[in-house]
Every structure is written in structure tokens, then in C-alpha cells.
């Protein structure tokens, strides 16, 4: 069998999610009565696996398609092509997993069961909560929708999870409104809402990027600790490699709808293979005045991937592009060393 991205995750031999050739195109609005003038290839053939309890980082600049991947995974968007299959543990708690579920086929009650297993933490702790509902309503909503317990059980349960995410004493938070909480506290509520159903996978879309430095660290360690305690896998979407370093077991770097490199975190940061990863890494400022960085070897700026040419997406900006790169299609994501995947002809 061909090695696939993610196969080498040593401790996670049973993949929880397997994403294969995921594609999402958005039409570019043409005139009102005309057909779309083109398609933004937001996500273009993305494949990866996430193991049980594993944390995979999805890193890239804005517009690279990382948020779209997240939304596809939680079924807030439907893919143009490609498949996502989940392999959840049986409800009885047996070690043997149930049959893989193809996310595309889920509807009605089965979709509701799916929602129990896969949750999302939003970037914006201000917008992701209904301003007219209390913290209790917000966290108890998944329980109510999934018909778990009665109203009183839910109060206990919400108090329990509030304690767990560090909002203590829980009784003083239960019946407050989101606008009465600080950004960090709201993000804790968002985490509580995502975890109250004990999901197997949580997609976290830049959960700390809108927070202050001081509350950011608290949220990061909380998420890490909860993942260990509850055996939750994360798809951690971020633009910040430094944050990804602390949150993720493996990191996938995206550029214009494609994964260009995927490797174990410290490996990727220490020895980046793909020229884009290298450029990205060398652009990150370092909180040490004595440290001197060289400017990143990259030219130009990211363009929106509207009907891009078939060749390597990074060709125009790549410092080591060759004639092969110009004439060949976008390079496949290949295993260049054990557990290290890169999509580049020159590596």
C-alpha cells in the first residue's frame, strides 16, 4: 500500500478521521444574470488523517483555505469533491471502532449523532454566542438538542463543565450573559459548549487569536489538558506557528488550497523541507532582542486562487523554482522521509 499522509503517526494507529482529496470551489460572482466568472479553489485536493486523541495543526496565511477545511470537516459546508470518513468509537465504549462513516451521507438523525462526535470552537468569542441567551442556555443547548437529561440534570452538568474549564464558582457564571464576561472567559464558555457532548474531534478555528497574551496562554493550556483528559482529537487551525508548536503533535502547512508540508511539529520547525514553510518560519518574529533573523526568501504576495494554473501553486513566489516546476503539474504530497510529507519537486 502507498504510504499516505498520517500513516506514520506512531501512537495513533486507528485514524479517527480520514480526509481524501477534499475539494471546495466557491463561485466568483459574475454579473447578476450571468454564470460565475470563475471559481476560487479554496480547498484543492487536501488529504490527511487525524488519529484518536491526536492534535493536528493546520497552519497558513489568511485565505489559504484552512478555515474552509475546518468547516468542511464539521459539515457546515459541503465539499465539491473528495471524501471525509469518520471512525467513531462504539457508543458502548468497546475498543473496537464502528464502521467508518462517510460524512457526505449523513442526514437527519444520523447527522445529529454526528454532531455529538464532532464539534467546533470559533475564533470570535464575541460573535459565537447568542447575546440574548445566558451561559447556561448556551452550554446546555447541545444537551437539549441531543435530548440528554432533563433541565435539572443539565444544570448540574453545565455547572460541572464550567468548573472544568476554570470558571469558578460555576453558580456565579450560570445565569450571566456573554457580554458580562471577558474575552478569555467567553472562550472558556465556548470550549465548555464544544466539550459538553464529549466529542471525539474538536475543530478549533484560531481559538486564541482574538485574545490577549495573558488569557491566551490559559486557554491553550486548558485545551491541552482537556484533550488529554477526555481523549479528544483536535484539528487546530491557526496562522501562528508559535501557537501551533505548543498545541499540535503534527503540523500541516497550507498554501493556496493545498497542503504543502506535513510533519511532526518539532521536526517541521527545526528542519522545514518545503520552501514555503521555510519562508513562513523565517518571517515569524522571535521574542528575543539578541536573535537576528534573515529576511524570508520569498517574493510577491498571495493571490486569491481563482482558477489557478495547474502547475505548482507556489511557483511564482518560490526562490528555487526550476523549469520542471513550471512545466509539471502541482507536485503531489509525498513522503520524503519517514513521517515527513512535502509537495515539492526540489526536496
Amino acid at each position, binding site marked *: 500500500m502507498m504510504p499516505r499522509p498520517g500513516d506514520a503517526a506512531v501512537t495513533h494507529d486507528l485514524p479517527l478521521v480520514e480526509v481524501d482529496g477534499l475539494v471546495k470551489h466557491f463561485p466568483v460572482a459574475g454579473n447578476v444574470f450571468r454564470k460565475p466568472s470563475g471559481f476560487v479553489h479554496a480547498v484543492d485536493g487536501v488529504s490527511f488523517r487525524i488519529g484518536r486523541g491526536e492534535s493536528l495543526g493546520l497552519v497558513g496565511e489568511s485565505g489559504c483555505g484552512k478555515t474552509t477545511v475546518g468547516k468542511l470537516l464539521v459539515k457546515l459546508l459541503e465539499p465539491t469533491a473528495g471524501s471525509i470518513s469518520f471512525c467513531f468509537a462504539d457508543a458502548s465504549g468497546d475498543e473496537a471502532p464502528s464502521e467508518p462513516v462517510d460524512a457526505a451521507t449523513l442526514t437527519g438523525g444520523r447527522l445529529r449523532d454526528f454532531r455529538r462526535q464532532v464539534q467546533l470552537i470559533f475564533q470570535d468569542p464575541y460573535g459565537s454566542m447568542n447575546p440574548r441567551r445566558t451561559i447556561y442556555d448556551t452550554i446546555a443547548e447541545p444537551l437539549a438538542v441531543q435530548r440528554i437529561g432533563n433541565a435539572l440534570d443539565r444544570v448540574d452538568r453545565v455547572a460541572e463543565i464550567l468548573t472544568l474549564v476554570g470558571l469558578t464558582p460555576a453558580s456565579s457564571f450560570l445565569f450571566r450573559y456573554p457580554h458580562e464576561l471577558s474575552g478569555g472567559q467567553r472562550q472558556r464558555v465556548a470550549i465548555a459548549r464544544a466539550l459538553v457532548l464529549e466529542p471525539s474531534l474538536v475543530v478549533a478555528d484560531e481559538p486564541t487569536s482574538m485574545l490577549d497574551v495573558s488569557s491566551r496562554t490559559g486557554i491553550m493550556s486548558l485545551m491541552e489538558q482537556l484533550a488529554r483528559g477526555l481523549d479528544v482529537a483536535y484539528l487546530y487551525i491557526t496562522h501562528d506557528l508559535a501557537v501551533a508548536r505548543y498545541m499540535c503533535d503534527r503540523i500541516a502547512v497550507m498554501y493556496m488550497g493545498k497542503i504543502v508540508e506535513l510533519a511532526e511539529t518539532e521536526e517541521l520547525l527545526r528542519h522545514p523541507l518545503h520552501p514555503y514553510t521555510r519562508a513562513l*518560519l523565517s518571517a515569524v518574529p522571535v521574542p528575543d*532582542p539578541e536573535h537576528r533573523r534573515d529576511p524570508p526568501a520569498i517574493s510577491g504576495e*498571495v493571490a486569491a486562487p481563482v482558477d489557478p494554473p495547474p502547475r505548482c501553486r507556489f511557483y511564482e513566489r518560490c526562490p528555487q523554482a526550476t523549469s520542471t516546476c513550471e512545466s509539471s503539474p502541482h507536485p503531489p504530497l509525498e513522503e520524503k522521509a519517514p513521517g515527513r510529507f512535502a509537495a515539492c519537486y526540489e526536496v
Partner: protein
Amino acid sequence: MTGLGLRYSTRQGEVRALRDVSFDLARGEALGLVGESGCGKTSLAKSLMRLLPDNARPAGGEVLLDGEGLLSLPEEEMRRVRWRRISLVFQAAMNSLDPVYRVGQQVLEAIEAHGVEETVASARARVARLFRLVGLDPRVMERYPHELSGGMRQRVVIAMALSCDPDIVIADEPTTALDVIVQDRILRELKAIQGQLGISIIYITHDMAVVAEVTDRVGVMYAGRLVELGETAAVFRSPLHPYTEALMSSFPSVSGEKRRLASLSGEPPDLADPPSGCAFHPRCAYATALCREQSPPRVGRGGQWAECWHPLDPAAVPVDPA
């Protein structure tokens, strides 16, 4: 000109956004101001420019620019100082550009409004020069803001801030909304321009990494006060104030050893009702009864000082705030 003095103290309102903040800024120097949101960084910038909202009123203090007090200047005079002496790079570049005018026109207007150039032709030439300076093709002048990427817009805003040869540029979170590669380029350009034109820049940011890379000196703000000030290298090597240490150790880095991130417990204080004594004491690991009761003294070491009862370096000795 022998280093311009800039001094500022106390602004009081119902919410005391700034309390007795003083620092000086030398010609050609890059000063960083860091702190959590709501610590008074942006209020400070607005106070310097006298661009405060109606409900804010300065309560004491003085801003001296080359010995001239800015807070008492008549509005007419202040308008001359603003932009020609001190200019501002806003955080949200999209919001500070008018979407219905070409970007070149907008920079041109800033130049004409302040009468820096005699003729339209020379003003246009100046805009072209400025665009090249910030790394933009002068042809970009003819484009509208929405046609530009975030990085290009930020460059236009920087060009605008530089348009009247200011002595001081205040950059309020200049790269927060940008991707790292673009951020890197803009910071490098700002640094190059600073050296080339000999201007002073005040960077206002929450990003310790940016401060470490671009500033000569750094001031740490907490609850409307400047709690530590010193050479950037010295502050990073050995901070005096526990808050500075906490900020630095909570900041992740991609390089070096992966160390444990310390998290700061609690929330920033309510400025309408700040804690007694040292405002940081409820969150401070070293706090004692003394910190709760009395405002901390200023202690220093070399050019670096902090306001703390228990500075992290015991060698620090009390210094006179003047």
C-alpha cells in the same frame, strides 16, 4: 536638535485610563509600548496627538515637544503639529482609507492640507517618492483601497503618515491584522525608513516578539501606568517587574527550546475601580501586604526602571522619578 523631550502625566476621568505616565523619546529612537488590551496604550497615543474623544479629558501632565507644551497649544497650532511633527499609523488600514478616492489622491490631500509642497506637480512627485520609500510601485497611486491587499493598504497608510516629514510616527498595532510574511516586510521597511529619515517611532503593540525585534527601548504598561521602562535588550534579558516577566514567559516562540508557557491568572483590573496599592498585586506571584496597601516605589538599575516593591533583581535601587 538635541533629542526631543516628551513628557506626559496623568489623565483622569471617570475611568482613569492613564495615570501619571512619563517617558522621554530621543530623536531617531524606536520605543515600544506593550501591554494587554485596555491598559491604556491607545489612549496614550491619542493623548499625544490630542485626538481624544469628547468624553475624555486630560487631567494634569504635559507633553513637551522640543520644549513646547502641546497640551496647552491652541487647536489651530496643534493642527500644525499633528501630522507635520507627530503622525499616526492606524491599526485598521482599511478603515483609515476612504473607499471612494484613489489612494494617491488621499496621500496628496494630506500633503496639500499641510502646505508642505508649493505646487501640485511637486506634491505628486513627493507622493511617488513616498510610495517608493514604503516599497510600493508609484502606479499604485491610481488604485482604490479595495483593489489593494492588506499589506499594500498598510503601506499606503504608512506613506501617508510619512507624507509631511514628521519627527515622530506613532504606529498603533501597525501589523496586527497582517500575515507574518507581510508583517515581516513592513517591519523591516519601517526600520529602514526610520534609519534613513532619522525619525522616532513609537510602536504600540501587544506582541512581545515584534517589540523585541524592532525597538531600542520598551515601556510596559499595566492599568494605565507605565510599570517598567528600559533598553529592550536589558528588559528582555532581565526584567525587573513581575508583570513584564509574566508577559514574556507567556509568549510562545518558534525557535529555541520549547519551554513551558506560564499563564497569567485573573483578568486585567477595572480601570474605573483599580486595586489599591500596586494595581498588579491581585495577579502577582510575589505580592505581599505591602503591595496591597501602598503604591510601589520606582526602582532602577542602569537606565532601566520599574515600579515595584519586590523587583526581580534585588540589585535595583530606588530612583527619583524625575
